[in-house]
């Protein structure tokens, strides 16, 4: 939280002028003052143990399921059953270490990083358009050499959450105006969303827009702007679906969604293969599941069962009961995270926490909705479960921020 005096006395800052906090530490005494107020490490009060516990439980279940889901694929495709799990486990350990470390870090320092991270995310989103491998006309992944692949959209989501929390907390009293409450966010979001659409990456765009909406909504933007936004978004989506060639791939997915068992054409059969195999897996699970490790569908029927469709294997092996428990764990995580955020000691922490937790919640819901063919197939990974080292580390780091918020939150932490 910024200096409350500054917040009340100084003229409100515009989006780009958050640097004023960075100018202050020029004065050594001010630095000390800030250090006193915002310790780099806020270990004084503990972190929220239920939230940490939920994260670790989900992470462990996620790793177990990743191993179970991936070993056949790993063996056939990479020659070793441990190909995916060994890599993911290393990343998980790194991620947990990072999470704990970050939880000691005073999240208020993130004010300083809001703009640089946003600019960095823009830079990477532009970079990915030109450098990444073209996979069927889609550019989403940056190659990071030994670190593997990285999706700039992951960073973009965090950047948006952070900059929104930053700006909203600074301009909280003017959130009901268009100039301070709507316009800056529209510009920021518009750039990111525009770059994502160029990739194109519809699912990330959707998540991003929903997250931004959530934060603005909580931040106090007038409801009529949401009305206008919904109307406008609806019109844009209609236009894109109906007229844009670029979105024809999304269109095909809509057709495949409506009838995954359609045998109308070879193209549709090929398109719906993944969804069909996912539904077979989920249905095979029944109430109690086939048992851990007993999935049949992971034997190359379900393509890349370690990625976006891992939950289908979870359903097949653990059944409805197991899947329900995992969903409840996620719901509890979201609930606890939001409770932490609501009790954060300032609006920045509150908004940041809600943004990060909602991001997890949204991904879980959308991922499982895709796996169950409740919504059309689109690439959304399942937090803590899906394979992907960099994204797991980013996720755990973000959870570390929530834990950091919990340290100063007035919540009961046991």
């Amino acid at each position: 939280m910024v200096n409350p005096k500054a917040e009340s006395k100084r003229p409100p800052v515009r989006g780009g002028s958050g640097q004023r906090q960075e100018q202050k530490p020029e004065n050594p005494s001010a630095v000390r003052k800030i250090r006193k107020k915002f310790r780099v490490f806020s270990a004084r009060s503990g972190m929220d143990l239920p939230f940490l516990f939920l994260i670790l439980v989900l992470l462990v279940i996620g790793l177990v399921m990743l191993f179970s889901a991936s070993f056949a694929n790993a063996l056939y495709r990479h020659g070793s059953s441990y190909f995916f799990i060994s890599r993911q486990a290393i990343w998980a350990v790194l991620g947990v270490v990072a999470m704990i470390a970050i939880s000691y870090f005073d999240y208020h320092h993130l004010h300083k990083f809001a703009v640089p991270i946003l600019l960095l995310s823009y830079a990477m989103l532009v970079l990915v358009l030109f450098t990444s491998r073209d996979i069927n006309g889609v550019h989403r992944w940056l190659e990071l050499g030994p670190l593997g692949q990285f999706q700039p959209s992951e960073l973009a989501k965090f950047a948006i959450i952070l900059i929104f929390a930053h700006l909203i907390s600074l301009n909280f009293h003017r959130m009901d105006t268009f100039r301070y409450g709507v316009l800056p966010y529209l510009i920021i979001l518009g750039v990111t969303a525009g770059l994502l659409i160029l990739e194109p990456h519809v699912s990330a765009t959707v998540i991003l827009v929903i997250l931004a909406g959530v934060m603005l909504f909580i931040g106090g933007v007038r409801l009529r702007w949401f009305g206008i936004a919904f109307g406008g978004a609806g019109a844009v989506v209609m236009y894109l679906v109906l007229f844009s060639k670029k979105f024809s791939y999304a269109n095909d997915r809509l057709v495949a969604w409506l009838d995954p068992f359609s045998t109308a054409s070879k193209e549709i059969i090929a398109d719906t293969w993944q969804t069909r195999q996912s539904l077979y897996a989920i249905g095979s699970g029944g109430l109690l599941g086939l048992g851990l490790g007993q999935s049949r569908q992971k034997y190359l029927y379900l393509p890349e069962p370690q990625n976006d469709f891992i939950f289908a294997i979870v359903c097949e092996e653990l059944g409805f009961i197991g899947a329900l428990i995992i969903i409840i764990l996620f719901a509890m995580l979201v609930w606890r995270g939001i409770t932490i955020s609501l009790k954060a000691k300032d609006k920045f922490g509150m908004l940041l926490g809600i943004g990060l937790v909602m991001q997890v919640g949204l991904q879980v819901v959308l991922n499982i909705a895709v796996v169950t063919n409740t919504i059309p197939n689109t690439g959304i990974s399942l937090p803590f479960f899906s394979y992907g080292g960099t994204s797991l580390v980013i996720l755990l780091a973000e959870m570390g921020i929530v834990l950091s918020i919990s340290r100063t939150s007035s919540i009961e932490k046991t």
Partner: protein
Amino acid sequence: MAKGTTIRMWRRTVFLLLALNVIGFGAIIVSLVRLQLINGEQLHTMAVENQMQNTSLNAQRGTIYDCNMKELAKSATVWKVVLEPAFITDKNRDLIANGLSQILGMDKEEIIKRSKKKTYYDELKRKVETDVKDQVLKFKNDNNIGNGIRLIEDYKRYYPYGTFAATVLGFTGSDSQGLAGVEQQYDSYLTGTPGKLVTAKNAIGTDMPFQYEQKVDAKNGDSLVLTIDEVVQHFLEENLEEGIVKNKVGERGGAIVMNVKTGAILGMAVKGDFDPNDPFTIADKTEAARINAMPQGEARTTALKAALDKQWRNKMVSDTYHPGSVFKMVTASAGLEEGVVTENSPFYCRGAVVVADKTIHCWRTYGHGAETFVEGLCNSCNPVFIEIGQRLGPERFFKYFQAFGFTQRTGIDLPGEARESASLYYNQNQLNPVELATSAFGQSFSVTPIQMITAAAAVVNGGYLVQPHVVSQIIDDSGNIVKSVDTTPKRQVISSETSKRMAAILQRNATVGTAKNGYLPGYRIGGKTGTSQKTEVKIRTGKDEYIASYCGFAPMDDPEIAMLVYYDEPHGSSYYGSAVAGPVFAKTMEEILPYLGVQRKYTDTEMKKLDVSAPNVVGKSVNDAKNTIVNSKLVAKVYGSGQTVVSQVPEPGKTIPQNGTVVLFTDTKSASNTVTVPNLVGMSLANANKAAANAGINISITGAALTGTNPVSNSQSIAAGAKVSPGTVVTVGFIEPDQVE
């Protein structure tokens, strides 16, 4: 102003939290309930089906045997080359496409395109022979390609004798389904039941740790034993083909050999047929060239299809024709049975009869004058049969027409038998005087050749209408009989007494009557010729086109074999059945009757003209040899100056006409003498004998020469101008040129 969460933020957050939990988590839980608890079992079943690899085990198609278990059609193992695009990577795509395109002779780009499909199974080429399969296998091993190319066993149909009996056998399509002939008719027996192997497999087809295997063996198809006799069929086809060339036949020809007592078809041939190994190629070279010269387009496609349909069409079963005078044996049978006529009933032919103001001519327009019924048949005299038709009346005539099976399909076990159609004939109400008169001698209605020979069989076999058939037995894989054909006659249509009388009349006809071109000494041949105008062609194009046919039997004292020879649109020197079809009948019968075990029995007249076999006089003294030869009713002629015979022509045991010359060589030098074969065609018997004697050769005569009144030679077995040893026997065929019809 609170530092932390305001009331409104709190409210809005709680609202969102509830929205996410209720709508979001609620929706996915509802979806899971629906998928796992409500539709779970159904999806599970689908999943299991999906995970079970169902490998079809091909059943081997049954073999087709002739009546002596000679294989006429059999299946052999070939291979299917299948691409597994899912396992082809960008690394080996080019290698695989290159290798396969060379081995299989396919377009490389096409293979590359197909290797990018999102599938695990793409049939690249079927019916690949084992040597090509071995090449593919070697290519796979050499380049260490595990998955990506698969070889699956398949079967291919072989017809070892090419075009032999193609019309009866038919052929199979790309999925081994029968498309014509017995292949089509008995497809369900021949096919068998494919088996299957059900195993739990992962999506790339290797085993999953969950063992599940269920095997249902393929049941190989049943085999057919035909009534067709390879030897009979061989001679039939050979002679039929020769007749087509000789008589410049326009619309193909066909012939059937049938056992008159059982209806078993011993041979059935249509020439202008196809090679069942390659049925989609036009066998007729001129026709193929004509179609090849056509520009691509609809006209060419139509022409190609028409040409294929034509070569596949079984003329003997699917085509109808006016039987013409061959039908007179049916009218005659009806007349004798009903007692409206006897052998000696007198008739008088003026060359034409007026029926209901319409003049109907006899083929011999100046008439046959006074004749008995038998003479009338032997003359194939139309007015005689018009009168018999009139005596029978429409009702009785139609009764026999029906009884002899002309209003129904014969039910032969071959596909495509011409439809039963009332438009092909007149029933008793439609048989007005003119229709009755023309029907009585075989014009104005249409029948199929198989109907005609079946009715003809009933005329001579004691009066029984039999069921013609080409399959005698169906046997399974292990040789057990699945089905045997019932040869019980359908009905008796005339009394056996009448049948006997008809047999005698027909034998007389083939001995001295119009059918005598089919005569063979000793074999008691009976027969009837037929020449019918294709009236529909006349109406359509104004051209005179004919069908020349000959239907005969042997031996007439106990008829066994019937043969119908049929030429559609002969354009040679004659279009008459006696001249076109008769010699083919005679030649074929002469070749097949000894094979079928029919003994020659000679009449006294025949004995006098009988050929003898040359005695062996080699090594004897010239005088002894001369005596032996004279005792054998032969003439001896000596070449050389030696004392003993060193060689002789004809060689010992060879047949030679009575009073023929045996040439004796007394030294080796004289044995190298040769004489030139003279032209012996177009001569009377006396002239032919004289020419042969002058040239120093012997002639053996066949056809109408022995019984005919004015026989003329029309063929010789060794061409004129050839150098042969003195005394060589040249066979000369005779026909009766003026005894036509």
